[in-house]
């Protein structure tokens, strides 16, 4: 396998992480993107590296693997390129907050499951909350601290990963859009692009929310769809929020997909002093229209957690598209219908954090090495991915 040629289609964080992992394993890698690197979903998210939002199961395992890998990946990149600071890695920890009795009960059950799966969780009493987050509403019913939650500046992190891949010999072709597959003997042997034909032995679909469209062009469609999210950004403030703070609704929102739009509060500060306030989840296709009512909902939920932020000035909002699969699990592996085509995507809102674990699993599968976690749940040939899954909610998470 060493020396095989791999074309990674998509230069977002997933493509960047895969390129890095594959080139380290001795493969010949080219990364192709129709735009620039890290310009789409990767630069429109919050940079979550979370374990707190996932219940026991394969996605949590992938999150835990990724969380273990991140510090080493960044240390290696620093050694190699001296630029890992751009990732703005902050293992700041998260705090999950319930504000109702029912929420407290739901959160307790959720956390109990997570603990059995090895997630570190500390219950915070009133004093501990006050000292950890002095501006958090005192009217909460439960606050749980997840010390392993972290944050990166997502575009910076992607560039660190891609930068290392390039430093190790990978090539990058931006402004190059994939138009279709060239098959030979049932295998994909090349892609036609706006910049000509690109040949390889392996093609990795890492096109994020556009993975569905790309897979259709390649003739092996997968059910990856966009789900819009919006984040509010305040003007820079003196330090006010010290962890990633979520209302416990966030747990529910990730898995469910019943309504068109859902919101839950995720509040955190950045190094620049701005506070990021998320987030919404809307199934509106690739519609970019601003919907102030959605922003209002996000604002209301954030104020439930941090009433003192009412006077904070919101200077910007940005929205992006998360790639989701109806069963809310990532897709990592070979496409059984088209030899030579692999997929790495469908991470919904967690792709930044899950990127390095995904790349590790993909690389191990590709090289036929044992994977560090069970990879079967992410396989491509499951109904939710290949179609036929009637509705997301029917599949559960």
């Amino acid at each position, binding site marked *: 396998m060493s020396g095989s040629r791999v074309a990674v289609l998509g230069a977002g964080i997933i493509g960047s992480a895969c390129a890095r992992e594959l080139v380290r394993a001795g493969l010949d890698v080219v990364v192709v993107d129709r735009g620039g690197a890290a310009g789409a979903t990767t630069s429109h998210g919050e940079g979550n590296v979370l374990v707190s939002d996932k219940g026991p199961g394969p996605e949590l395992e992938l999150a835990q693997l990724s969380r273990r890998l991140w510090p080493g990946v960044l240390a290696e990149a620093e050694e190699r390129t001296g630029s890992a600071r751009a990732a703005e890695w902050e293992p700041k920890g998260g705090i999950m907050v319930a504000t109702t009795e029912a929420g407290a009960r739901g959160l307790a059950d959720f956390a109990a499951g997570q603990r059995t799966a090895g997630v570190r969780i500390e219950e915070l009493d009133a004093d501990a909350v006050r000292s950890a987050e002095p501006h*958090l509403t005192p009217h909460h019913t439960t606050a749980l601290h997840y010390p392993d939650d972290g944050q990166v500046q997502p575009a910076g992190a992607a560039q660190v990963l891609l930068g290392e891949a390039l430093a190790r010999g990978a090539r990058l072709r931006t402004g190059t859009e994939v138009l279709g597959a060239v098959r030979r003997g049932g295998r994909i042997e090349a892609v036609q692009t706006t910049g000509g034909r690109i040949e390889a032995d392996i093609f990795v679909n890492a096109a994020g929310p556009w993975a569905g469209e790309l897979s259709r062009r390649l003739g092996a469609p997968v059910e990856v769809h966009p789900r819009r999210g919006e984040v509010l950004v305040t003007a820079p403030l*003196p*330090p006010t929020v*010290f962890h990633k703070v979520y209302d416990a609704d966030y747990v529910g929102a990730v898995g469910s997909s019943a309504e068109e739009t859902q919101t839950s509060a995720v509040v955190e500060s950045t190094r620049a002093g701005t506070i990021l306030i998320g987030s919404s989840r809307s199934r509106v296709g690739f519609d970019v229209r601003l919907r102030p009512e959605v922003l209002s909902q996000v604002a209301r939920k954030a104020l439930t957690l941090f009433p*003192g932020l009412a*006077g904070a000035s919101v200077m910007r909002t940005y929205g992006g598209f998360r790639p989701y699969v109806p069963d809310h699990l990532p897709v990592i592996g070979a496409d059984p219908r088209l030899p030579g085509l692999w997929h790495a995507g469908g991470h919904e809102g967690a792709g930044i954090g899950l990127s390095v674990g995904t790349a590790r699993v993909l690389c191990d599968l590709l090289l036929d090495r044992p994977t560090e976690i069970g990879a079967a749940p992410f396989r491509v040939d499951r109904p939710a991915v290949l179609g036929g899954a009637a509705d997301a909610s029917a599949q559960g998470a």
Partner: protein
Amino acid sequence: MSPRLVRRETDAVRRTDRPIDITVDGEPVRGIEGQSLAGVLLASGRLAWRHGPDGAPRGVFCGIGVCFDCLLTVDGERDVRACRRRARDGDEVRTQTRSPHEGEGPTTPENSPVDIPATPPAQPSRPQDGTS
């Protein structure tokens, strides 16, 4: 020389000045009714009242609400463009800074210099407190 107000006695537009009193970081400053806060501060001889991210002083730059260099805290309301906000008698103005309070890395609650109310503000919502 500092900025100043055109002397009323010689001003060709023949204006009528009605004084108003505000405080800037606790210090009394007299302005005239109708001035923007930027106008009051400039006319009082102040050229700069904010510190940028590098800690250097900043004041008015664009004068019409575009550059956000002249931000002030007014009666506890942060990030008010001084060039856009009409001064009112009794305004309590505080200057703002974006100077880092320490080096790189996250600030912790212990070294946070701010006092932001941890309880829901009275209605209508009051903004959070400003900084040093």
